[in-house]
């Protein structure tokens, strides 16, 4: 299955990746071959196999509704690329 350059560009926009023309070519062919492999997998009869969404066999992992201490404001903002007035600061968002 051929993945076009346009499709690669769309995925790149969604993932916020800036790709060079060369990378677009590379990904187009690599993604195509990945999907070809899925076509191969489709040949297997999975009629009686339930879809797997998780590798773990675990079920119902839950906790009680208890509050524990949070990070301090300083710790919270420590990794932010930009912070000011006790908040993370980002380019102006309208609306």
């Amino acid at each position, binding site marked *: 299955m051929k993945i076009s350059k346009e499709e690669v560009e*769309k995925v790149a*926009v*969604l993932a*916020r990746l800036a790709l060079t023309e060369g990378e677009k070519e590379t990904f187009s062919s690599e993604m195509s071959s990945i999907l070809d492999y899925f076509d191969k997998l489709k040949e297997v009869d999975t009629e009686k196999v339930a879809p797997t*969404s*998780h*590798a*773990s066999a*675990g*079920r*119902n*992992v*839950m*906790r*009680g*509704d*208890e*509050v*524990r201490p*949070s*990070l*301090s*404001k300083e710790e*919270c*903002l420590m*990794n932010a690329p*930009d912070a*000011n*007035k*006790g*908040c*993370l*600061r*980002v*380019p*102006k*968002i*309208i*609306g």
Partner: protein
Amino acid sequence: MECVSCGKCFQLERVINVEFEVIIGLEVHAQLLTKSKIFCSCSTVFGAEPNTHTCPVCLGMPGVLPVLNRKVVDFALRVGLAVHCEIAHYSRFARKNYFYPDLPKGYQISQYELPLAEHGYVEVTTNGKSKRIGVARIHMEEDAGKLLHDERMEADSYSYVDLNRTGVPLIEIVSEPEIRTPEEASEYLKNLRGILQYLEVCDGNMEEGSFRCDANISLRPVGQQRLGTRTELKNMNSFKNVQRALEYEIRRQTNILDDGSEVIQETRLWDAAKGVTLSMRGKEEAHDYRYFPDPDLVPLIIDDDWIEVVRGSLPELPQEKRDRFIKEYQVPEYDAEVLTSSKSLADYYEESVRLFPSPKVVSNWVMGELLRRLKGDDRDIEDCPVTPRYLAKMLKMIEDGTISGKIAKTVFEEMYLSGEDPEKLVREKDLLQLTDEEELDRIIEKVLSGNATEVEDYKKGKSKLLGFFVGQVMKETKGKANPKLVNEILRGRLDR
């Protein structure tokens, strides 16, 4: 038939009812009243200093693992069962991928395929007719952070992000596109909010955003099966605004279709000040969320035992309570509707009736003076200075003749202002009913001798003047005279 747009005028009747059918579907996001967040132990308390309720999990640091808060599931189950949904025995979480500054992980943990609950309904009554609005699904998800917009923050060319709300539990309740008028939409929301409040899973505060609503709306020619192009409306933070925004959007889409143009599928923001919806064009890209099962959260299995435990814990819901009030207290349907509009009001009423077992009398006072005063002060019943005990005490004082019904209004006002015991107020403000016959007789004598002409007229047959004399006596006693006694004495004197 009245106009579906405003419910009052008749002008749009032809345009809308004859030519187009309105199709509305609502999405409600309700914040759940848990103490901690859905996938971590940070506090959910509203109004804390920005960015003081976060941890590596809700900040989306690498290598952390979310763990589901069991209470979120309990709460979501309560709602699912209360609106008659089928509960999924096997349910799972999914990642909804998009980039926005209020979303630290780059995805929101939500449910996509296999939501917790599906196929329920909420009953609504408009113009005396009941109808079931389908609930397509209810799923659990995490809230995003908040972009701060106060003036201090807005002066520059940045936006400021507070991540305290990130990870606060939400349920999204999606209706079927079965709503046909803005009025139905508003009723659906009111009833749904009432149910959430009765269940004590959400405070229902629309202004603070703990109960938020988006609407999808489209028009199609009557008789056509295929749905028309819809728009999505956002930013409506009250029932009134939801109704107004939908009314506006019906007019807008009607005009477009009447012109032979096409409605564009887009998100539009309601501007309450201008009373219009505005396109968000250019600010939002076509969404492609690339949902997939979240590998960090294992599937959720809900067995029948769990469902039955939750079902057994459900309280009496608004509709059941309303029906019971009509039956048990013999109050009119309208009274029952108002009295059960919130659980706290219903509790207030029931407590008052328990202390003063004349349901209709209590209902008249609660729905009259009490709600009028609270509404005027924009107060909730929880903040009412007059307790059920004092209200009942005052009603007893009217009943046994200690105070007159007229004076009771003054006593009530004093109680409302001070929160004091009515007995104390009556004593201190000298509001006791005047029942001393000798004194009343003296006052009546005075009134009659001061209105000799009227007395003449009365004796000539103008018996309606009795009311005038009673009024004069009341005036003379500042409303404290016992009206029954006044009537008796007056008649005795005039009719002899």
